[in-house]
């Protein structure tokens, strides 16, 4: 039976490989030939993602008391970055700006869902560790009581 962890690792590896190969087959030929026509979109997306990740690092550090608000801030921030880069690099045709929401919101929902799954997994792990720790403490206390 393949564990969920192994499936997760496999998917992570697959997507990372896809990212690396995509960059290699677009950026490297562009660097060599000097023709950035095909690679420029990839570079633009990479740059936009870099900005989103950096901003998320910042929102992760600031303590927002209600996580729903954090999700909304993150989503708003992602939409702002995508619309800003879209405007600069002309990703959207005039009249098709709604496409940005169609692209960003489903991706964000999938990301948020994966995040929730991770939180649940972390909570389960911590609870398991707490139980082990409490058992140890109780055993030590029992031992000490017997000795005295």
């Amino acid at each position, binding site marked *: 039976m393949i564990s969920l962890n192994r499936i997760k690792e496999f998917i992570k590896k697959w997507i990372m490989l896809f990212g690396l190969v995509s960059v290699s087959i677009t950026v490297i030929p562009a660097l060599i030939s000097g023709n950035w026509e095909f690679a420029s979109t990839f570079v633009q997306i990479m740059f936009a993602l870099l900005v989103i990740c950096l901003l998320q690092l910042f929102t992760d550090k600031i303590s927002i008391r209600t996580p729903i608000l954090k999700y909304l801030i993150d989503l708003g921030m992602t939409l702002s970055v995508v619309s800003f880069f879209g405007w600069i690099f002309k990703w959207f045709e005039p009249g098709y700006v709604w496409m940005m929401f169609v692209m960003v919101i489903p991706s964000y929902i999938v990301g948020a869902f994966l995040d*929730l799954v991770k939180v649940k997994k972390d909570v389960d792990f911590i609870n398991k560790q707490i139980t082990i720790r409490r058992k140890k403490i109780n055993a030590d206390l029992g031992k000490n009581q017997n000795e005295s």
Partner: protein
Amino acid sequence: LKVIKKQIESQSEIEVEVRYAKMDSTVHGLIKRIEHFGRSIYGTDNGRQYKIQVGDIYYIESVDKKTFIYTKEAVFRSELRLYQLFEILKETDFVQVSKFCIVNMDVMESIRTLPGSRMESTLINGEKINVSRTYLSEIKAAFIAKEDD
């Protein structure tokens, strides 16, 4: 575990010697507990200063830039800021669970998610404290680090 007690009147402080055949997690954990024993911080209550044993502290909370130390039955005020106390308690079994709170891992009973993606931890005295998702990975890392102790 064999405990040998020896009274030496000229002895100025308690001295503990641990003899072992092989350093393992039990011996390591025991040494760490002895090292942390007697570590204390100061807190005030009604203008009087008290020495609080680190092991007696349940959690420390910062409210409106004031720091409060909670033990099983009492609450003390500390002049130190939360981050300063956390620095002092770094080598002990305390973990930061939110920007405003650090908790003794020994008194944590469980942790759970609440509707609206909030989280809380229940302590062994039934008290519930807020846990921030931002600190979840640090809590996990703290338990992993202490696993071998």
